[in-house]
């Protein structure tokens, strides 16, 4: 080693006499520059190829296609839609359908999952075994298979409209779907809705007041019961006072199909059934693990304070179990939302089926369509996890 090179090395390093090669700062910067350069290079390569390939195939780029006429029908839409509507409208219809099935599915899966999860811990041997087999069976079979099973092997072999099953009077089940009577509001029926909203607001207010009073005076108030009573009672009262302004329009068999009523298409039923039953199995395991995670000492402590078993469950076990349950429960909600994209396999018009399926095939603008679809799911994921993180931070242990 000559003295010149060692001087160079000292300059390059931070004066400690070691080579730059051993300086963690220099290595860090070099490594990061390499990573970023590599990624940017790859992106540029892809973008360049995409541009050339799209030009060769004569496919337009940009988002202009969204305002063009779609020209296809959608079998279920929550907002007015015809084949004259734009692609953007089709996107909107698909998004609403996804949200519809996901939100109903989340509610059913959560309720069922809690029931099964608690049943798995039941003292009753039979109930415990049934719950265990439910979980082990549904959790280990692919969701797609379950969806196809419900759709092709159960709902498709139901009788035709003329031989419809009629489980409840006015409700018909056949291979065209589930037909429910339509609720038609007469003038004055909006009072019921307002009563419902007022009841929800009032019960939130009461529970806040009750909590505050309990923290100050220690006296308890049955806010849950009162709240439930309000939510059920007020709309009922409004319904009776305004003179029952709601009619049920029953569907009638006309020719080979039913006319009138609300039709729940079989694709929706199969998807909802599959998603809810499958996710419930996972939620059951989370609930079970959450309850088991509360140590037995907590129960004993509650008993030694003189709490009855029900109050123990309500005030000691469940609040602590919820802390363990909520984070994985969030990811199950996200999974259910993402899994609703399997709708494409059975033809339910959700976001993927409508937008990444039909619209993509018609316009050929794969890059834009796929990116928009992915961004929508990404946004839904971030929103759900953001909300659940907020809820979790409220439930989390407050350490003094």
């Amino acid at each position: 080693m000559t003295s010149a090179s060692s001087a160079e090395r000292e300059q390059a390093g931070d004066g400690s006499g070691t080579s730059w090669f051993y300086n963690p700062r220099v290595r860090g910067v070099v490594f990061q520059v390499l990573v970023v350069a590599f990624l940017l290079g790859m992106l540029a390569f892809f973008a360049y190829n995409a541009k050339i390939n799209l030009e060769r195939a004569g496919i337009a780029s940009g988002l202009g296609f969204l305002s063009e006429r779609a020209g296809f029908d959608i079998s279920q839409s929550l907002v007015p839609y015809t084949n004259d509507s734009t692609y953007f409208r089709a996107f909107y219809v698909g998004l609403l359908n996804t949200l519809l099935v996901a939100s109903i599915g989340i509610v059913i899966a959560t309720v069922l999952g809690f029931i099964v999860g608690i049943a798995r811990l039941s003292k009753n041997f039979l109930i415990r075994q049934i719950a265990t087999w439910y979980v082990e069976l549904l959790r280990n079979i692919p969701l797609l298979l379950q969806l196809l099973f419900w759709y092709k092997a159960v709902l498709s072999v139901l009788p035709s409209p003329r031989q419809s099953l009629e489980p409840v009077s006015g409700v018909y089940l056949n291979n065209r779907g589930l037909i429910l009577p339509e609720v038609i509001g007469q003038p004055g029926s909006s009072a019921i809705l307002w009563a419902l909203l007022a009841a929800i607001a009032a019960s939130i207010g009461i529970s806040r007041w009750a909590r505050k009073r309990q923290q100050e005076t220690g006296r308890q108030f049955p806010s849950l019961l009162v709240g439930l009573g309000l939510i059920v009672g007020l709309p009922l009262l409004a319904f009776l006072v305004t003179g029952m302004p709601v009619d049920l329009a029953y569907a009638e068999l006309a020719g080979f199909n039913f006319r009138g009523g609300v039709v729940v298409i079989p694709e929706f039923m199969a998807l909802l059934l599959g998603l809810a039953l499958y996710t419930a199995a996972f939620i059951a395991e989370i609930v079970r693990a959450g309850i088991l995670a509360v140590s037995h000492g907590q129960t004993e402590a509650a008993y030694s304070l003189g709490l009855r078993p029900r109050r123990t469950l309500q005030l000691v076990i469940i609040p602590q179990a919820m802390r363990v349950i909520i984070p994985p429960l969030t990811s199950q909600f996200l999974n259910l939302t993402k899994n609703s994209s399997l709708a494409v396999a059975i033809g339910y018009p959700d976001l993927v089926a409508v937008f990444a399926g039909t619209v993509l095939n018609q316009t050929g603008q794969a890059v834009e369509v796929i990116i928009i679809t992915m961004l929508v799911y990404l946004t839904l994921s971030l929103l759900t996890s953001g909300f659940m993180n907020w809820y979790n931070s409220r439930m989390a242990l407050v350490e003094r």
Partner: protein
Amino acid sequence: MTVSKIAYVRTDEAPRMAPPVSETGAIGWIRQNLFDSVGNAIMTVIGIAMLALILPPTINWLFIDAVWTGTGRDACIVEGAGACWAFVHAKFGQFMYGRYPDPERWRVDLTGLLLIAGLVPAAIPRVPFKRETVLYLLVVFPIAGFILLTGGNLDLSGSFWIGLAIMAVLSLAITVLICRNAGIEPLSPLKVVAAIYAALALVFAVVSYDFGLRPVETQLWGGLLVTLVVAIVGIVASFPLGILLALGRRSKLPAVKLVSVIFIEFWRGVPLITVLFMSSVMLPLFLPDGVNFDKLLRALIGVALFASAYMAEVVRGGLQAIPKGQYEAADAMGLSFWQGIGLIIMPQALKLVIPGIVNTFIGLFKDTSLVLIIGLFDLLGIVSLNFSDANWASPNTPATGFVFAAFVFWIFCFGMSRYSIYMERRLHRGHAR
């Protein structure tokens, strides 16, 4: 003063009586477990009602009314017939191999045997030579499987070899340059780089060698074969990528951390279907003209990227469980970053997350069924495809096919989940002390 006279003292033990019938044996068990309170009794009755509602029709359909033999739909279309097992029997070869040519199916069987030969010793904790087995599973088996399944004899042009040689020379030159500049003896780094290129050249030479096997295009693959190929390639390919991403997410370098976080959260935030759509529709657009991946390979790329994000989170969990002292000990021993990770941290972290890896694999295994949406025929895909066979069309055919596919998936997933629970207990025992 007198000793009080006791009228009666028992001097021998009373004969033992059998416990009440209601407290032991089957009756006692039923009383204690099913009818020990009113609420419990009601629950039991509900349970029995549920079973009575579900079990008899299911058993009837599956076994008693089922059609076991037959050569066509006539056997299964009988009034009141149950499951059409004759359909499964007739199509069994397709369900396992897809349209893989009949005389070549021994190659698939042999690949399966090679896999089992590696998996069994790797999965049983007591068997020695773990490192060698894992090496076999991750290097030797994939190459052998590739050659057996596709027929090998990969068409590598002369320019490919020239390119590889140029890359090798360039890498060696850069190594020398860096070592010179940093004042390190360049011999041992050079050896490492040269060994990597030699290994690469060997692998390419083997896969491009003509073993005289008939080439079988991936379009002919199907059934359980495709399911297993997608799942195994997905998990093996996602493993190294997942480890790198997990390290990246815990890195102190901001750019590396940001890139890893974005990558992981992106793939975890989107459904697998959109990923598969992307790899089947968008990927061809991103490649230069003339480069063409077949459908299976495109699906594999999508699945591997998707799985690597989940794998990264599993590995990160393991990394977080390693106390800081282990990193500091590695530093104190004078190990470099990669030495410390490879010799101290990863062996401990990966051992901790074996159950998590198995669970990721179960999820991936179930998710492979989604490839049917982009037109590949995995087990579920080939079963559904056969419903349209007019020779077997009957009202019970779809249900039978789905039950069979569900049974196969269930066996695999349930087996793996039991293994995961077993490993979890085993690992937990060591840590609980």
